[in-house]
């Protein structure tokens, strides 16, 4: 446009109608910006929505529906000792007590195969356990035991590979052919399932005496089984197989031990169970009496303890099973109660192995007698069948009932129940009827209580908060308690704020009230630069530089926390000694003077470190922290010194200073300053004396602070994290507080100074109170940053999920936990969703903290405008 100005041609008449293109552009811009703006804001809020969306399924109740209920012809289902279903939920199988295995189609009840397992020999006892397939142990009247395995072997075949006879299958139809069963899957493949039953040669355990009970466990030591003879002999045996490399012949070797069980009134027990590791045998009588034998040494089983599973005299134990891993014993009784018992190791237990059984969970109470119990092969799910035909599914650890189903045909007594291998179905047998329910419970172990309250995990002595998401063994139970992580987060925040907040606030006061503008223009950006330091740098410095350094000089570090403020205050008192005139002229040098006190403080700490260690911590602070040597005195000193210094300061300013003022107020400045110095030094001595007296009294009373805020020293600890994370939050708190202090109207300062107040009085009585809400919001925002900081804690906090306040120990925070575990978590698994819940918790904490800060800040701003 400017180039048009010089032309002298007659100016075109200005059009008064807005061009269409302008309208168009305006409209397009308006809609685009509105759309884009709202879209962006929505996208940002999507973060929160998405987290919630991922987390919600964790707490959704389980769903169940009847898949089928049919009558199985030609079989006596009341005599079934064990039933089950295949992985694809299409074939059911059941073993009758006479040794006959029957498979049938779940949907129709059509019998597919019938197999005689022992060709007419009738077992006297059965035991089934989940392993590689179903591990079976059977005992016979002639004193032999036969171990075996039932497996469904599955293969997928294309159309050209299957025999003619099954080509005509419709999708979903099942047909037996030869020794296998074929099914056409919806994907157009043929699924061939072959039932493999393999029994090994019988093992003679006792000569010509009938065996009445048997159980086996497959552990890393090989197969172990336990049997009870009719005369009350308990035999435990470990089976080891050796293959001869030359002949290829397999030899079986038994390592066994036995003992006589004391039979009250000659009655035999009803149940025998062997623990998963083979280290305990449980015998349970019908009246609830339980005897545990310690079989850690298989050749020498010993009596361990005896207790009563059912307190009521007239009631009976009606069902007994063990959870996966065979550590927990589940006992159902005639009152309809289901209780879970496992071994704990409390202090002072007087059993040979130091363990006692406790009833940790009680799942249901009341209702008809429990007639069938089945544990899942992969999780802590438990199916409970009752005499009134109800079938309920529980998750043991979280004490949660997932669903309840019952037969449509009324209140039939459930004779056998089973959980499908993938935990996605329930099988129930009642009379001749067989029913199958589909169950959808992807996250049965999580409830609000299991995440945020104490949970009694298997093998723990008492309910605890725990986070432990992985382990080497298969039957390990993941522990998803968020509380230790939240605790770690709070601990990190607390210690870093303890270090960072005072420094940042003091710095902000000085820089807004006492710093000359020229210097401030240099110092403020320097500190703000701290904010943009990547936290990974701080983390690596914490872990590789600061942690090893601090480890070497623990007493010096602790001493420095006290000597540096002391040196600075001492410097201030010495400065007062200068005559007023000189002091005013030397104002410029004040910052330099302060700078000088810092190395003095550090030197003092370096010099005092060893003597202090010798005096308070018996010469070796790490051994002292371990609790090996020394008394609690040093620890109390450490904790009480700040308290006593505050008390002394209050005492002095309330009692001594007014008197001093009345007494020596008219003295000359240097003379009074000398008095003030003396007061300060005496105050310090008083602080020390007070702290020492209180500590000595507490230590003499037998209280030891070790075990609370101070305890065993670990290299990566909260002290180091506190330093470096304090470092990370200082710039934020500093900047915001400085802005808040600087925003206090100049008129207030001028008024105060004009009324005769000194700059210090103005700062502390006018400016700081006015800016208080700003300072508060600065602290909150700093807190928010500390809560979410990841890299520093990840690298320097050791990452063990312990719950103790010990400043010399590490912790695991929510953020570090996510960073460590999320890359390995399987998508949509409970672990994955729990980590999302951790993220959501973090989000919620920071969001609340920041919102409070923002609201306070807005209020402050309004107030500042009013002034």
């Amino acid at each position, binding site marked *: 446009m400017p180039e048009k100005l010089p032309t002298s041609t007659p100016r075109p008449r200005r059009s008064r109608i807005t061009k269409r293109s302008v309208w168009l552009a305006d409209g397009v811009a308006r809609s685009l*910006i*509105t759309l*884009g*703006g*709202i*879209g*962006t804001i929505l*996208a940002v809020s999507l*973060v929160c929505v998405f987290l919630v969306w*991922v987390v919600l399924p964790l707490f959704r109740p389980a769903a169940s529906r009847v898949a089928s209920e049919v009558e199985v012809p030609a079989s006596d289902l009341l005599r079934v000792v064990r039933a089950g279903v295949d992985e694809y939920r299409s074939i059911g199988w059941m073993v009758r007590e006479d040794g006959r295995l029957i498979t049938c189609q779940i949907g129709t009840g059509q019998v597919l195969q019938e197999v005689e397992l022992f060709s007419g020999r009738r077992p006297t006892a059965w035991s089934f356990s989940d392993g590689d397939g179903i591990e079976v142990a059977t005992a016979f009247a002639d004193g032999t035991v036969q171990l075996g395995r039932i497996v469904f072997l599955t293969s997928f075949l294309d159309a050209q590979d299957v025999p003619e006879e099954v080509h005509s299958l419709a999708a979903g139809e099942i047909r037996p052919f030869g020794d296998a069963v074929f099914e056409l899957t919806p994907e157009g493949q043929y699924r061939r399932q072959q039932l493999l039953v393999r029994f090994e040669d019988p093992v003679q355990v006792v000569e010509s005496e009938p065996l009445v009970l048997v159980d086996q466990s497959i552990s890393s030591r090989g197969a172990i089984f336990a049997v009870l003879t009719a005369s009350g002999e308990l035999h435990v045996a470990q089976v080891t197989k050796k293959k001869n490399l030359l002949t290829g012949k397999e030899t079986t070797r038994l390592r066994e031990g036995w003992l006589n069980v004391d039979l009250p009134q000659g009655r035999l027990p009803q149940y025998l169970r062997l623990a998963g590791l083979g280290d305990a045998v449980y015998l349970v009588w019908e009246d609830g009496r339980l005897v545990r034998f310690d079989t850690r040494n298989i050749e020498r089983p010993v009596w361990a303890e005896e207790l009563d599973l059912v307190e009521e005299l007239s009631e009976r134990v009606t069902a007994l099973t063990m959870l996966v891993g065979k550590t927990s014993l589940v006992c159902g009784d005639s009152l309809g109660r289901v209780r879970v018992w496992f071994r704990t190791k409390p202090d002072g237990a007087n059993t040979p192995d130091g363990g006692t059984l406790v009833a940790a969970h009680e799942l249901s109470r009341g209702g008809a007698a429990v007639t069938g119990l089945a544990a899942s092969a992969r999780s802590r799910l438990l199916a409970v069948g009752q005499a009134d035909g109800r079938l309920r599914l529980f998750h043991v650890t979280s004490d949660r009932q997932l669903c309840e189903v019952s037969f449509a045909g009324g209140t039939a007594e459930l004779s056998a129940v089973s959980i499908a291998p993938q935990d996605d179905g329930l099988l129930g047998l009642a009379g001749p009827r067989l029913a199958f329910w589909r169950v959808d419970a992807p996250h049965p172990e999580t409830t609000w209580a299991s995440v945020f309250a104490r949970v009694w995990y298997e093998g723990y002595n008492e309910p605890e908060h725990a986070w432990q998401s992985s382990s080497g063994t298969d039957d390990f139970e993941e522990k998803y308690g968020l509380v230790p992580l939240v605790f770690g987060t709070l601990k990190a925040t607390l210690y870093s704020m303890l270090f960072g907040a005072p*420094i940042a606030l003091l*710095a902000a*006061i000085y820089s807004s009230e006492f710093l000359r503008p020229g210097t401030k223009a240099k110092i403020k*950006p320097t500190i703000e630069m*701290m904010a*943009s330091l*990547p936290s*990974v740098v701080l*983390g*690596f*410095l914490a872990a*590789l530089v600061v942690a090893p350094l601090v480890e070497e000089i623990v007493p010096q570090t602790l001493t420095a926390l006290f000597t*540096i*403020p002391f040196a600075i*205050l001492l*410097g*201030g*008192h010495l*400065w*007062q000694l200068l005559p007023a005139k000189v002091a005013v002229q030397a104002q410029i040098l004040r910052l330099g*003077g*302060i700078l000088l006190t*810092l190395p003095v403080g550090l030197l003092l700490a370096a010099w005092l470190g060893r003597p202090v260690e010798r005096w308070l911590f018996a*010469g070796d602070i790490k051994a002292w922290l371990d609790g090996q*040597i020394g008394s609690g005195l040093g620890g109390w000193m450490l904790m009480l010194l700040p308290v006593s210094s505050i008390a002394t300061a209050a005492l002095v300013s309330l009692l001594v200073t007014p008197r001093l003022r009345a007494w020596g*107020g*008219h*003295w000359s400045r240097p003379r009074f300053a000398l008095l*003030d110095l003396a007061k*300060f030094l005496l105050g310090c001595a008083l602080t020390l004396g007070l702290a020492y007296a209180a500590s000595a009294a507490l230590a003499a009373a037998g209280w030891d602070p070790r075990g609370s805020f101070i305890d065993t020293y670990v290299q990566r600890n909260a002290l180091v994290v506190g330093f470096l994370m304090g470092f990370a939050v*200082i710039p934020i708190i*500093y900047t915001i507080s400085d802005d808040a202090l600087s925003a206090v109207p100049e008129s207030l300062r001028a008024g105060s100074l004009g*009324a005769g107040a*000194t*700059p*210090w*009085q103005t700062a502390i009585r006018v400016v700081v109170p006015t800016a208080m809400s700003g300072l508060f919001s600065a602290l909150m925002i700093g807190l928010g940053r500390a809560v*979410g900081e*990841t*890299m520093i804690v990840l*690298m320097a906090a050791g990452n063990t999920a312990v719950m103790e306040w010990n400043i010399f120990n590490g912790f695991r925070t929510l*953020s570090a936990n*996510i*960073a460590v575990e*999320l890359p390995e978590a399987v998508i949509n698994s409970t672990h994955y969703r729990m980590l999302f819940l951790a*993220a959501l918790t*973090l989000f919620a904490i*920071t*969001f609340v903290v920041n919102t409070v800060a923002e609201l306070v800040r807005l209020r402050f701003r309004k107030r500042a405008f*009013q002034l």
Partner: protein
Amino acid sequence: MTIVYEPPVAAPPQSALATADASPRRKRQWRGGNSVLAFGEPLVWLTGGGLLCCVVMIVGLLLLVLYQGISTFWPLAVVQVQTTDDHWIMGEVSRDSTFELNYGGLPNLSPTSQATARRLLNQQFHAAMAAWVEDGLLGRRLAELSEPALRAAERAVELTPPVRDAAGRERSELLTLLDRALRTSLADGPQRLETQVRQALEQDTSGKALDQLWTGYRTQQEAWLTLPELDRLAARLRDDAELAYQVWADYALSLLANEVAVPMHRRLFRTGNFELTNEHFTWISQFEVAAEEQPAWAVVFERLSWGRFYGLPKTLLVDGQPMATEPAGIWQQFERYHPEVRARWHQRRRLEIQEVGEINRRLEHERLALRQVELQHGQESAAWQAAEQGFQKQNAELEQEFARVRAQIVELDQTNDKYQLLVQTADGQEKSLPLAEIVRAYPANQLGGLGRLGIYLSRWIEFLRDDPREANTEGGVLPAIWGTVAMTLLMSCAVVPFGVLAALYLREYAKAGWLVSIVRIAINNLAGVPSIVFGVFGLGFFCYIIGASVDQVFYSAKLPNPTFGTGGLFWAALTLALLTLPVVIVATEEALAAVPRSMREGSLACGASKWQTIRRIVLPRAMPGIMTGMILAMARGAGEVAPLMLVGAVKLAPELPVDGVFPYVHLERSFMHLGFHIYDLGFQSQNSEAAKPMVFTTTLLLITLIALLNVFAIWLRGRLRRRFVSNAF
């Protein structure tokens, strides 16, 4: 309007004193003393101390990183040390420290050094004891010790196997017994021990007698601790007061000895030669050194694998023939042959990466095309048959091509293998190093200042230009630089338009009301939401949901290997964009708000439409502010690591995200990142001591990058403000 005022504000202390005086108002007098309190100088100093702590910490930290980062690559002299137990060690001194040698540290030493150290300690022990005895302090100290000694003896008993296994009651019984035994025997304990110490001091001055006295008690106590049977132990405790005394005396002496320490200088030698010694670094204490020299022809070899090698060149072999046998000659020959060998090695590597990589890529492409046909038409269809034939033909061609390249590579390798350098280590072992394996070699003690500078600079160039070696502890960080830059640029491309759109909407179009205030507060809050939360979102939403869907639609042939369904450059950039969005929105909004209302009104009054006003008047004025926001966002994004760990940053990326292969920018690839590199080196490295220098240089690089961005932003902000000040008046 009421002014909210705290009462004490209006009442300075002087006036309080003045009103306390009931007498008629006197002339106000200058009270010097009171002014001391009123100025609150010590407290002002405390606030100043806080400020200076911040400044000192940041400056100290920067100086530390700067010093460590800059000094790392400087080549040091190679020192050869003969230890007292006749080991020879050669290497660079990577750092030194002083430590306090005490009796507790003895078991970690080799037998010969142990003897030397014990002698030193014994002397010190003797001196300390002599001083105490002379001052009469020993008796008092021993009396002080009896209480902790009691506890220590209790502990010793607790650790004895039979007691440890005993049940609670028996154990406490035993402890009571011990307590009684110790108390009765200790009545004259300190006195008796002092006499013994006195005697030992008189025997000899080397401290040997003192040491013997102590060792005697130690063996006594050890024999006692291994007593197998509980009842025997109890019986002995009951009867044997002498034994109790010995337990106590051992503990007392060891406590006293604990205060004896000889300050000792030690150095950490980077000794290299990992394949021979199984360690990269060795600590050598000063007292272990028997002789020390700087061998003239000690050569430092930086190699492709196994880390550094330190040794003296013995023979240069070409094709098995010794070309030179004395060091100067060898060095001359080495300098002649090494460049050509390295050139061949580079050629080989280029073949491997470019040509073999190209063949593999084509092979993979063909395979995927076939798989695509299979997915579309089924495996037995005619189309598939045809494609399969084409594939086989292509495959055969590529195999031939591959064989040709392979042959070239083998030939180059064979030529290179002819050149070998025979090197002798400090302890006389010989090792043959292929010249091709040597990245850089220099006779450290022959170099002058300029030579060192040359090595120093070449190391920096390698650092900035090359790929990492040796699990990232050697070589360069080029891929990490590329990754960081590409990711940051991509992020800014995503964040700026949307951030500006959102800010424009909020500031210019949205009706101001409670809704907008809430949105504003929410956006401010998002700036404070932890970055890891965004990482979680990025992984769950971008990678697992959007990425998996993209894979289903466009990359089905590659499944089940994810293409976009896992962490990558694009998702990382988007995640960080989301993270930095609040920064940009807030900065842009402030910039928009800073445009004076008058200018807008002027423009509108001239008849411009709203969009014209925004485009021609508001945006240009706000541009520097927007730029500041962008740069601040880039600085934050470049330094953020936590979310990247979840959405695509990896330890070692085989391919750069940007290269010469179509489509040049590979958004789906995982990438290396300087910040993640620091985390990986500092925290997950096997050889953390060797990784340390590298961490510092990488840190320096990252901090420099971020500082530059920040300085630029601050400068821009300053300019912007000046402009407004001049515009406002």
